[in-house]
């Protein structure tokens, strides 16, 4: 399954997003944003490892996590 990467504004949002996902049964980890490097400058991303990525992204948006981009693959 292709990995869904949610690129966020900052490490704080990445950590917050990971917590939100974990509390709702999604697996994820925080990583440096290398998928869209150069587009946004330095940043972090949440890599979703289990659970429906579409629902995970909706959940993050519902919690006002500032998402820059969602990259699949």
């Amino acid at each position: 399954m292709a990995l869904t990467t949610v690129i966020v504004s900052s490490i704080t949002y990445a950590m917050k997003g990971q917590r939100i996902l974990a509390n709702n049964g999604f697996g994820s980890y925080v990583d440096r944003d290398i998928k869209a490097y150069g587009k946004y400058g330095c940043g972090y991303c949440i890599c979703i490892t289990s659970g429906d990525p579409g629902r995970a992204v909706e959940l993050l948006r519902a919690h006002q996590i500032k998402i820059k981009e969602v990259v699949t693959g």
Partner: protein
Amino acid sequence: MIYFDNAATTFPKPPSVIRAVQDAMTCYGANPGRSGHKMSVQTAGQVYACREKLAELMGAPEVENVAFTQNCTHGLNLCIKGILQQGDHVIISDLEHNSVLRPVDTLAQRGVITYDVLEICPEDDRETLSRLEKLFRTNTRLVAMTHGSNVLGIMTPLEKIGQLAHDHGALFLVDAAQSAGVVPIHLEKMGIDFLCMPGHKSLYGPSGTGAVVTQKGELLRTIIEGGTGSVSLESQQPDFMPDKLESGTVNTAGILGLGAGLEFITKTGMENIYRHEIGLVQSLYDGLSQIKGVQLYTSRPGLGRNLPVLAFNVESLTGEETCAKLDEVGFCLRGGFHCAPLAHKKMGTLDRGMARLSPGYFNTPEQVEIFLREMRKIAANPGNGR
């Protein structure tokens, strides 16, 4: 050595705080929020955990409402100078520390703002609020108030002051230097727009830590810009919290220590800590009030009305001289003006200052007895100072 100077900084720190700082130096030594390697991300996780704990303790709805600072003064400057603009009016109290008075007065001296000083009535909140009501102007932008005096321990009626500020369209900033970790503070319920605190006093963190807690970070103009580890290709400072207020590398070891301090407070119980400390202050007050030649400046401290801080003087001695004599017999107190000239002006002690007692959680009733015994000797024979 008996340490009664916790209003300056708490000592000792709980062992867990010391361990957390050591762990930071050995296991979490990377720069959080800058790199992608495991140690950097793990370190960032530890910093985030402290942020989470502080947000919860202070009733902030979101973790990103917490921005770490070097100390309370740093946070107060970020907020005061970030909010105020040309032509604004500010209200402060006559108990304010220089960390509020100086940035406000500096802006006034530069012709940017005007300000008024509210006279706090320690025994009469209604009168305090009535006086506050009269100070508002159409251009009052900010009410900046201490939660409690670092000299006298007097607490201000925070919620009602905040309500009045909002009724008049002003923002409400609270200096919680002496109250954070002592008495409950809730950002939302108390209507606080900007809450500033040190990490190294009653939150039991190391020195070099503090925080601004706010839901209104977007209102602040930044006075410090720099690297944040986020949106680095933009030459403008990030406009989102906490990055907006956290330029440069944070005090990682300090923050991890602060996280352990917050856990200590939660496990011990803030109310247990406060009751213990107020109990000691009450015993000190009762003992000192029986000693001829000792002058006290407030009524007997009470639970819910006072912070665990008590100021006094000995006849014919200045506050510094009293503290010097106490230092000779092993007691740590702060004498002088406590960076709070308005409070000393209020109490009529601009010529001599005061000696200040601020017991902490690790002080004991036995230490209070030893102190009172020494005070009886000093008061009986003050001499000519040091």
